[in-house]
């Protein structure tokens, strides 16, 4: 894991000298976490995860001059990733707010494997709730940072998290 100073030095090299090696180092550093987050968000679609992750890094590179360095680079990157995901959902005319209520939910319910229980739980969440759950439980991001990533007030994040907690707890009640 790179330190904050090293991170800023790499960003400075990208801005000042268009240093692609420095940007490659940033990609190496943050791709695992970002792809894990997007993989959860896309409900396990590996191809879409890679596409969105690549787009996220490209957008980050093109607009790296607008990175002010107040938040961590990772926070900024996750914000771009969330925007990319929501843009993709809009392009495909998929609802960001409405949870999927597909017929195969019953099939998934029939499986008692924990992985499937998690999938069932996550499917019951809206895209925003899913983003919050993944950032809070998997990426261990604090609420303040999540509110920054998703551009919403901290109180709203808290409400979403509480609702998601109830839904997930209901879906995973056998494991709890």
């Amino acid at each position: 894991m790179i330190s904050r100073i090293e991170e800023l030095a790499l960003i400075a090299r990208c801005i000042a000298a268009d240093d692609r090696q420095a940007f490659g180092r940033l990609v190496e550093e943050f791709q695992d976490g970002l792809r894990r987050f997007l993989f959860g968000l896309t409900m396990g679609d590996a191809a879409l995860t890679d596409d969105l992750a690549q787009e996220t890094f490209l957008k980050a590179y093109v607009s790296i001059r607008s990175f002010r360095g107040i938040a961590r680079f990772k926070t900024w990157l996750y914000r771009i990733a969330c925007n990319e995901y929501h843009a993709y959902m809009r392009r495909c005319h998929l609802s960001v707010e409405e949870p999927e209520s597909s017929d195969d939910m019953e099939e998934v319910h029939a499986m008692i494997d924990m992985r499937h229980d998690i999938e069932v739980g996550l499917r019951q969440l809206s895209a925003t709730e899913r983003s919050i759950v993944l950032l809070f439980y998997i990426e261990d991001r604090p609420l303040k940072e999540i509110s920054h990533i998703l551009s919403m007030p901290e109180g709203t994040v808290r409400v979403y998290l509480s609702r998601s907690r109830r839904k997930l707890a209901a879906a995973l009640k056998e494991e709890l």
Partner: protein
Amino acid sequence: MKRNEDIKTDETLRRILKTGMPQAPASPWFTRKVLNRLPDRQRHRAAWIETAVYLAGLVITTVYGVKFISLMWDEDELTLNDAAIYGVIFALFAMLLYALLEPWFCRVDTAGLQRRNGMARRQ
């Protein structure tokens, strides 16, 4: 204020999700794919000014060099002072030429290295 029950649920959910969530499949070429898709380098104004200064320097040192050699030719003798001046002009010319061509050599070198690395990985 979070209730104790919520804190307990959070801990359990965190544990379950971290152990049970499927991981994104490894993508060893991911960084390379991203770097290949980056837009072309844009030459900054500073780079153009730098090149222009080097070219001007090269022209000036060439003119002075030629002038100096023709003067030496006319006088028909070479003093230590003349040799020193000629050495300085030549050194300046060489330095400017190197500074002008160095980025180009670097690009060629990097491309060759990437090709060799790619071939080695395929083998």
